């Protein structure tokens, strides 16, 4: 079974530039999460989707961050414009109602560096 796929793995941009991250969850997983992880800290939830609906985006900085999950499968997280403080690893995870409750499967993440 293929895991969660994210791209790109690394991205370096200058501040004020836009950037986008892509995530393909595990097939059949209805729930998709985007997290941000700063160095030395645990992942921080940005947004959670149930199918194509964003059910929890309370921690998403909506002035510059946006996300979409068209057709309830792949998802894209965008930052525009990027700021220095956005440098972090952006993790995507997915889960299913089957099996252990809320077991999240994570992708490898995208490491963003804003210069």
């Amino acid at each position, binding site marked *: 079974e293929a895991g*969660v796929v994210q791209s790109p793995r690394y991205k370096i941009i200058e501040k004020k530039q836009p950037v986008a991250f892509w995530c393909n969850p595990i097939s059949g997983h209805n*729930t998709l999460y985007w*997290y941000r992880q700063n160095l*030395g*800290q*645990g*992942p*921080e*939830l940005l947004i*959670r989707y*149930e199918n194509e609906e964003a*059910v*929890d985006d309370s921690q998403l900085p909506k002035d510059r961050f946006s996300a979409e999950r068209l057709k309830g499968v792949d998802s894209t997280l965008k930052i525009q414009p990027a700021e220095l403080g956005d440098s972090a690893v952006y*993790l995507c*995870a997915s*889960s299913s109602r089957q099996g*252990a*409750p*809320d*077991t*999240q*499967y*994570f*992708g*490898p*993440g995208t*490491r963003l560096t804003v210069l």
Partner: protein
Amino acid sequence: LAKTTQPISMDSYEGQEVNITCSHNNIATNDYITWYQQFPSQGPRFIIQGYKTKVTNEVASLFIPADRKSSTLSLPRVSLSDTAVYYCLVGDTDAGKSTFGDGTTLTVKP
């Protein structure tokens, strides 16, 4: 959301049993306790989950006392490859609400 408290770091030696305790004093009735492991440059990986008493799988055991205000992840006979950050999460899994803390960095020495 229930807040969790874990030690920042722990050291161990190969072959020893390691116990990492997580405090979650305000755990709610519907909350499960879940542990994840994270290696550098990788996303977290599910280890084990429980609601009460004891849960064991091929990787670890999870001990939860009757009051559920804490839990202990037990790793038997650790090896160098168990060096990682371990996160304890507490949350209502049906609502998809659980929060990562800053985890415990376990360093296994030869």
